[in-house]
């Protein structure tokens, strides 16, 4: 049997971003021995990139805000494709999750009377985002990190060992979820630093690995976002849903090339920033879709009045949900009304005094100054859409975050699907992490606690050997004949990113996606010959070769689901089917591994690895439907749905 380092825990959390850390805290607070696995250093997770804030209807800025309004906004933003129960739980529990952070030391910006200040954001009816300048994600991650340290200090006090009940494994990558029959039995992975393998035996595994953005060329996501959790779930036999919905954030940097895609926070618009094309026109007024006509201002004058007096003005169209704004920018650029580097102008310099900009948007000011030589207090920024978030993910039970069909597997955060429907509202991600991170941790702990010692699933040596062989493969690939020469993993990755960006990007067509699937099949074949040099110690080429498997799997999910859904909705826009179709509203597209047994190689290359099926969503509960007007529901729901 392969030499591996072995550990035993009750709950293993894969991923140490907001959701992972929150899950780990909860599992440990339930008294269970918990391990957290980070792909990078503790506290560096992608959550730190979140800028704007955490959406929670605390009602500090506007007392009329409550969970029902938040629920309504979330459903509208997701074009009613959201799992309604998740949206409900999220809206109900978000304020408690934010307040809880304060008891762990978080310091949000304050209102005059000392409460948590809340800011405006796209798609949110009231100012709702708890924030710290424009570095809210950092505050969130640091607070959770420090909470974990506090719990470790408690354990140290008790037992003399900081890691007695809660341990963080830094810079480790999980490559397989191990199973005993149908049930989860642990995880297999490697330590990035040494290349050594490890197995953690645990009956409950929480996936909290974030998104898939690194499959796209222009993205705001970091290298970690290779869809690991999505792939781990697929390989473990759990289905993914909604994978066709990928959010392109409307405002990413477009210049210089090396920073293309880096996020420009939506707070710029929430705090007064406006979008203009090369003619100087505030073009968003031309792009208000019918479903939002009543909610958004029709003139600049009306829009400008809203910042000071939101009760008597309608919102500026710059604050439409992200999918709408991204499409609008895309259209302006395609029409040739673009900025010098192929974006549009985002201007806050003429809207706020310089001092105020520096105070409210310090890291944006810093980012543009340092990376682009642009002073945002004096000149406009150039921005364009960037791949930002995947709405799709592991299909989970809304209350327990348990993955479908695999006992012991849980998922929370971006890797879980359903909560955001077809499009996520800004600010709903951080609250999602906290609400469902906690739920996943809680239910994973309950699941693990209910198992007796004899009843715990066991790790089979055979599975460990197979997993090890799979990971070591890139070292033993040998070039031979020209048709089987070795491949450079970096080159393969770049081709994959280009393919997804060009063919399954923000605007999609059937012919292009068919082509994308063909290329993905080709890349999949070639990726089996991805070879690396050197040894296993901190070898980034090797790490990338392993991650390619995951990116190829999720890319195929995205492409297949996008080809199947013949309508445009939220983060999925079809050139050949530009309208939203009510009949598609209640349908989830479900991706599963075609082979069904976690084996990848045997599948015929032309067929691909993913099997796609349609599944009807449960009908929305009556009292929640009653929160909407009949006229509005008519735009989304079919007549027969409305009748029942």
């Amino acid at each position, binding site marked *: 049997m392969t030499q591996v380092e072995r550990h035993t825990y009750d709950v293993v959390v894969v991923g140490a971003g907001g959701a992972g850390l929150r899950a780990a805290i909860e599992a440990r607070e339930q008294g269970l021995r918990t391990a957290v696995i980070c792909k990078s250093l503790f506290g560096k997770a992608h959550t730190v990139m979140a800028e704007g804030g955490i959406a929670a209807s605390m009602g500090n800025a506007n007392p009329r805000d409550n969970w029902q309004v938040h629920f309504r906004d979330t459903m509208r933003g997701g074009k009613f494709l959201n799992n309604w129960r998740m949206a409900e739980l999220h809206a109900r529990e978000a304020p408690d999750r934010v*307040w809880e952070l304060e008891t*762990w030391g978080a310091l949000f*910006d304050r209102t005059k009377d000392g409460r948590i200040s809340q800011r405006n954001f796209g798609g949110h009816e009231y100012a709702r985002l708890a924030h710290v300048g424009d570095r809210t994600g950092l505050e969130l991650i640091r607070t959770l990190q420090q909470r974990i340290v506090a719990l470790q200090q408690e354990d140290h006090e008790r037992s003399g060992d900081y890691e007695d009940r809660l341990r963080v494994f830094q810079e480790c990558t999980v490559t397989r979820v191990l199973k005993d029959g149908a049930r989860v039995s642990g995880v297999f992975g490697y330590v990035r630093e040494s290349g050594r393998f490890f197995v953690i035996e645990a009956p409950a595994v929480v996936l909290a690995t974030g998104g898939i953005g690194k499959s796209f060329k222009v993205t705001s996501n970091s290298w970690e976002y290779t869809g690991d959790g999505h792939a781990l779930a697929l390989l473990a036999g759990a289905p993914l849903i909604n994978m066709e919905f990928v959010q392109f954030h409307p405002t990413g940097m477009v210049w210089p090339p090396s920073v293309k895609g880096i996020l420009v926070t939506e707070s710029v618009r929430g705090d007064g920033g406006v979008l203009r094309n090369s003619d100087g026109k505030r073009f968003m007024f031309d792009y208000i879709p019918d479903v939002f006509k009543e909610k958004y201002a029709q003139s600049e004058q009306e829009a400008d009045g809203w910042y000071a007096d939101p009760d008597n003005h309608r919102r500026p169209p710059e604050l439409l949900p992200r999918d709408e704004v991204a499409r609008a920018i895309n259209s302006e650029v395609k029409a040739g009304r673009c900025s010098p580097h192929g974006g549009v102008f985002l201007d806050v310099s003429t809207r706020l005094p310089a001092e105020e900009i520096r105070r409210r948007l310090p890291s944006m000011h810093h980012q543009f100054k340092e990376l682009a030589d642009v002073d945002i207090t004096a000149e406009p920024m150039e921005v364009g859409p960037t791949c930002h978030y995947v709405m799709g993910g592991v299909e989970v039970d809304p209350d327990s975050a348990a993955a479908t069909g695999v006992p012991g597997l849980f998922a929370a955060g971006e890797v879980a699907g359903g909560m955001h429907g077809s499009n996520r509202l800004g600010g709903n991600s951080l609250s999602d992490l906290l609400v469902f991170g906690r739920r996943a941790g809680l239910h994973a702990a309950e699941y693990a606690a209910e198992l007796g010692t004899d009843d715990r699933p066991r790790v089979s040596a055979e599975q460990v050997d197979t997993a090890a062989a799979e990971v070591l493969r890139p070292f033993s690939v040998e070039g031979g004949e020209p048709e089987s020469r070795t491949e450079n993993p970096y080159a393969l990755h*770049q081709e994959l990113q280009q393919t997804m960006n060009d063919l399954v990007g923000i605007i999609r067509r059937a012919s292009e996606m068919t082509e994308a699937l063909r290329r993905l099949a080709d890349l999949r074949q070639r990726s089996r010959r991805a070879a690396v040099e050197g040894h296993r110690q901190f070898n*980034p080429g090797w790490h990338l070769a392993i991650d390619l498997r995951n990116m190829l799997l999720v890319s195929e999910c995205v492409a297949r689901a996008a080809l199947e859904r013949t309508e445009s909705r939220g983060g999925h826009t079809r050139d050949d089917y530009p309208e939203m179709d009510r009949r598609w509203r209640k349908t989830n597209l479900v991706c599963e591994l075609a082979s069904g047994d976690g084996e990848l190689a045997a599948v015929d290359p032309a067929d691909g690895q993913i099997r796609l099926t349609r599944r009807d969503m449960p009908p929305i509960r009556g009292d929640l439907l009653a929160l909407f007007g009949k006229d509005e529901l008519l735009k989304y729901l079919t007549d027969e749905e409305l009748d029942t």
Partner: protein
Amino acid sequence: MSAAPGPKANGSAYTARFRVWRGDADGGELRDFDVEVHEGEVVLDIIHRLQATQANDLAVRWNCKAGKCGSCSAEINGRPRLMCMTRMSVFAPDETVTVTPMRAFPVVRDLVTDVSFNYTKAREIPSFVPPPGLRAGEYRMRQEDVGRSQEFRKCIECFLCQNTCHVVRDHEENKQAFAGPRFLMRIAELDMHPLDSAEESGLDRKSAAQEEHGLGYCNITKCCTEVCPENIKITDNALIPLKERAVDRKYDPLVWLGNKIRRR
């Protein structure tokens, strides 16, 4: 569509001479590379290009590439910096750019160092003590009261200050006794937190900073402030105020006398 590495040339490109340290704990050397540089790029882009084209297994730690996560700390021409925030335009095209790992920590491989010292120190700092009797949702704090601690919470934990501080950089043996600027700043942050109740629970952060975390080792030479990519005024706003607070506790005769009397 081609798989040509690197972004498309946008404006002028040139070939730069890079000197990158390669090796591990057993030894290593500075190795020379000639590599293409395009307009608007940062040092991390060049390191990535080396990885993709000339040295597939070049180890480098990075993450967000936007100066927000603090992973890609290294030393560039001898100065501790984030690779993602060091633009190539600050170097002359004919200048050799030397990139080494941080030199205060043990090296793992190439540009990656073992920063566990920092995580050990983080655990030794007593955590936030929530005020008893206040439940979640009942916290009220004024903006002016949270401003100071908020500045310190901008810290992205790149550990450049820990790396550059001569107390541990030049004196390995001080690592035991000295928490380093980042974690002394953490003490200051908590001590200035308007609702931290450490004192009520019998924990004196001010004295502890000096007695247990080595505040006295700091000779305020400000290198931590100089290298901070977040421009946090670590010395002026955290370390010196913390020293003054320790003076309140330990060297102010009136306070000392008062404490003596009260203890009786």
